[in-house]
């Protein structure tokens, strides 16, 4: 019985649905508690910090500031060099606590350590910081003027300035029948995992143990090592159950570092779990604007795009923020045959909370920009949305296709998918229904959007398979599932490779001393990268098993065939030996041990699809997304239920981004919302979701042939929903979120 391709029930969910999972905050470690003194100002000089009153507070053991930590730091927190090039950036590596200045409201200035979190919270109020307020630059427009400089060392607030060009842009604009201007904005969001971030650090005899709500334990180990000058071999990072991350927990926070440093200074374990309001500051996302022009022929052919992209960084460059300004331009051409483009991408420091990556990181922005462009072109030329896209899509015989910026798309048939998707999703019927309803006075609208995304992200992933003497299987994966259920899909792949029952397989991850090396779970990569590594390791283990079986049966290994739990002598099929017996024999005699470790290289891959949304806008301008339909080519689908779960989760967040969620920053640079009015969709706001996967998928080069689905619906959803709103109210919209007051 083959497991791959089937909706196998998730393996380890009992503990989650019964409330018995162990997040950082649930771990019973005898640790001191940490709390942070935070800046009330967007920009101010720190003149002095008086900790004496706080230290007298009951239960308080220490208060540390920048001065206490700086001697222990080799450098500040860097950027994710696996994917990001420091040479392209102007940045100051962020220290554990604010140095001589604070640069956003909420920046940690001091850490208070005490016996319980209530005493710590009381003592936080007793730390007296004397500030001298400075003028601040809260908006990108203000920051661009460079009147207020956020990092003096840099001399400018522009952290990244790079122009991506290809083809003959001027020529294409000369040939154009029409030039269309666009301005497109994604406002600031907050990823909002259910579990806020948390960390426990314990430093003993030169060894640092860290329990950390992260999605990248090895990257964290490496960064802690570089920052602290402690060899990686003496740092262990353990990822307990993680209650959601959405990319935000790749980020390494100064607070995390402060907790580690405190544990080193005190020689005892220290713990910090962010409050909700701290989590809202810890990772904010998106926040960028594209202004440009599009050269088109009157038949809808897009000849060229030029424009300016401004990406807000917040006040510091985080570990993951460099991705967005570097990848958004590359992905703006999407699956369209746009042969000339010039996009200047600038990333700007502002006196606001720092930006991190969030589900889709850069592809939602690129997709929103290009799909707004396509829809605007359709409107300007009075053409059909599908027609305009079909006219511009790369033809099947042009794939593999290298886009205008040199990015190579691996496989796909975009036009066929668009056609079959539009049919399968009933797009034109829905449009007709919406039109009929509008005639009756209801504001119903239907919109579609197409996407091509980049996922997988190489460069490699780790997989290890161990068969013990009882024939049971442990799979150690470099993937770091944190809610997606990918562990079940990996078990399916290994089950199939070894032809053993899935109940005999245990998947393990998230501990730097168990997993030899790893990249982790992000960028829709886990099935492709970690699943493939596990599958290859399984096939290597099976080869070892065959050798053992050959030894038992006293035949050459070439004569052994493995079928459903039995190793068979091909020459005489009556002679066979069971899986369990081979496993037992594998730990006796010569060359004992049945394990394989694989570090499998990989590359980027390009899933794509078409999504459709149906919305209704009421008399007050309040939008309800009623139906959402997805048709995706994500390569091979290992577990359709898990993949569909990703489409559903992505859709809910797409609804949030499109019409509800906005991390409003007030004029003083403070975050103006809490979870009382930062509107994350509840089940009531979730539309009817239908998800289909292409019946004949175009596979990736990864051995399992999948491409990735983790971010798809959030990548394309906002564009589809916004298009549906435009259809409902017959009014152009070029930003997310769409607020009710934009519509009446």
């Amino acid at each position: 019985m083959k497991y791959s391709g089937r909706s196998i029930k998730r393996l380890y969910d009992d503990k989650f649905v019964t409330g018995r999972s162990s997040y950082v905050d649930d771990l019973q470690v005898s640790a001191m508690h940490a709390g942070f003194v935070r800046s009330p100002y967007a920009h101010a000089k720190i003149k002095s910090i008086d900790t004496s009153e706080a230290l007298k507070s009951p239960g308080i053991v220490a208060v540390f500031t920048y001065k206490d930590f700086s001697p222990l730091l080799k450098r500040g927190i860097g950027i994710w060099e696996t994917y990001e090039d420091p040479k392209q950036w102007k940045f100051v590596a962020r220290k554990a606590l604010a140095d001589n200045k604070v640069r956003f409201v909420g920046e940690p200035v001091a850490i208070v350590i005490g016996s319980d979190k209530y005493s710590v919270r009381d003592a936080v109020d007793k730390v007296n910081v004397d500030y001298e307020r400075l003028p601040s630059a809260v908006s990108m427009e203000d920051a661009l003027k460079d009147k207020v400089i956020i990092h003096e060392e840099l001399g400018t607030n522009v952290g990244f300035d790079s122009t991506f060009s290809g083809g003959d842009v001027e020529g294409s604009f000369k040939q154009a029948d029409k030039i269309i201007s666009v301005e497109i904005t994604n406002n600031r969001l907050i990823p909002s995992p259910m579990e806020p971030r948390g960390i426990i650090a314990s430093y003993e005899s030169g060894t640092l143990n860290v329990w950390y709500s992260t999605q990248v334990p090895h990257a964290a180990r490496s960064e802690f090592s570089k920052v602290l000058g402690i060899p990686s071999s003496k740092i262990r990072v353990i990822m307990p159950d993680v209650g959601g991350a959405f990319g935000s927990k790749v980020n390494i926070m100064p607070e995390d570092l402060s907790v580690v440093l405190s544990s080193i200074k005190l020689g005892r374990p220290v713990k910090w779990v962010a409050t909700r309001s701290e989590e809202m500051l810890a990772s904010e996302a998106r926040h960028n604007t594209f202004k440009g022009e599009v050269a088109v022929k009157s038949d809808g052919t897009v000849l060229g795009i030029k424009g300016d992209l401004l990406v807000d960084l917040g006040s510091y460059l985080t570990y993951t923020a460099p991705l967005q300004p570097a990848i958004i331009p590359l992905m703006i051409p999407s699956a369209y045959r746009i042969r000339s483009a010039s996009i200047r991408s600038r990333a700007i420091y502002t006196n606001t909370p720092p930006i991190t990556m969030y589900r889709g990181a850069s592809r939602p922005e690129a997709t929103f920009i290009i799909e707004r462009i396509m829809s605007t072109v359709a409107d300007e030329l009075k053409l059909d949305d599908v027609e305009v896209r079909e006219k511009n899509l790369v033809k099947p015989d042009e794939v593999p296709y290298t886009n205008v910026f040199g990015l190579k798309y691996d496989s796909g048939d975009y036009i066929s998918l668009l056609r079959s998707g539009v049919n399968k999703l009933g797009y034109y019927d829905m449009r007709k229904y919406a039109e009929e309803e509008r005639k009756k006075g209801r504001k119903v609208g239907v919109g579609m959007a197409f996407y091509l995304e980049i996922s997988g992200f190489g460069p490699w992933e780790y997989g290890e398979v161990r068969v013990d003497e009882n024939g049971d299987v442990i799979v150690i994966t470099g993937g770091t599932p944190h809610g997606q259920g990918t562990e079940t899909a990996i078990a399916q792949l290994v089950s199939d490779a070894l032809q053993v029952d899935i109940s005999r397989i245990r998947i393990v991850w998230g501990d730097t001393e168990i997993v030899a090396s790893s990249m982790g779970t992000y960028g829709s990569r886990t099935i492709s990268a970690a699943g493939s590594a596990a599958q290859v390791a399984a096939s290597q283990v099976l080869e070892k098993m065959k050798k053992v079986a050959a030894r038992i049966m006293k035949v050459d290994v070439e004569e052994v065939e493995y079928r459903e739990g039995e190793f068979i002598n091909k020459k005489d099929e009556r002679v066979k030996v069971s899986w369990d017996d081979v496993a037992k024999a594998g730990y006796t005699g010569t060359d004992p041990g049945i394990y394989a470790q694989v570090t499998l290289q990989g590359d980027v891959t390009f899933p794509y699809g078409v999504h459709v949304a149906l919305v209704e806008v009421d008399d007050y301008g309040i939008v309800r997304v009623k139906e959402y339909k997805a048709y995706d080519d994500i390569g091979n689908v290992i577990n359709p239920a898990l993949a569909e779960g990703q489409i559903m989760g992505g859709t809910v967040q797409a609804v949030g981004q499109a019409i509800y969620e906005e991390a409003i920053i007030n004029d003083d640079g403070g975050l103006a919302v809490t979870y009382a009015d930062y509107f994350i969709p509840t089940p009531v706001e979730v539309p009817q979701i239908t998800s289909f996967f292409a019946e004949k998928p175009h596979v990736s080069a990864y051995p399992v042939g999948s491409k990735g689905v983790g971010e798809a619906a959030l990548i394309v959803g906002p564009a589809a929903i916004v298009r549906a709103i435009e259809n409902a109210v017959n009014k152009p919209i070029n930003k997310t979120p769409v607020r009710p007051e934009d519509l009446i």
Partner: protein
Amino acid sequence: MRCNMYPTIFGLYEPSSIYDTLDFLDNGNAKIIAGGQSLIPMLKLRVIQPKFLVDLNKLRGDLDYIEDRGKSIGLGSLATHAKISTDQIVKSKIPLLSVTASKVGDMQVRNLGTLGGSVSNADPSADYPAVLLAYDATLTLISSGGERKVKASEFFKGPFSTELKDNEILREVEFPVLEGYAYKYEKIVRRAGDFAMVGIAVLAKVSDKVEDLRIAYTGVGEKAYRPYELEKELVGKKVTRDDLEKFAEKVSATLTPPSDSRGSSSYRKKVAKIATIKTLSEVLGVVS
């Protein structure tokens, strides 16, 4: 910037009778907790830092009554939103309160939150104040010194501010039974479970003309608001769509709603106007 979650230290007192409660309140520096749906967040945000909490939950049996008194219905202040929204007496005798209770917060809030808690808290966007104004409900306040009765129109003073003194608790809200009234509570929210961006409570007696009209708003100012004078313009008339539009325009012009993340002041005024026309058309049976 404070990152809150942990309240300051407080003592917890669980009185065994209402008299114990009132005696304790006379000592000052105490806050009543019933459902805690607003109080707990305020404690965590350190907006309030009381020395003591007085937990009324043990008194629930005595104070969550719903009593049919013929011409009026008395509701004990500890009646939960869930109880009010499912109670048959409330449903048949004071149905506007019943439908409103079913729209307070979300299911979790309704299961714990109480009528008295919400009314005493006087959030300018809460649902009940508008309904109390529409019914012209009477509130019974009690202290160790005795009882007094206050009309809803006098009870609500401003944002989170009421007629209640520190040593008083709200014991009961009494609603008149209005026979033959049409009713509606229109609550406009961006997301389920949220406070009203605008809420409109309407009670109207209509024959071939409007005999009585009571319309009250929440979310549009510092406290719930009832345009008593403007209401009269529609009474005694066979109201047309045109009358409604003029009425809604005039009401909207008197409002001073706040601007916040839910919507700007000018948007809320627009919403109040549209909602007024929509709600009154429905309740008064005006054909558009």
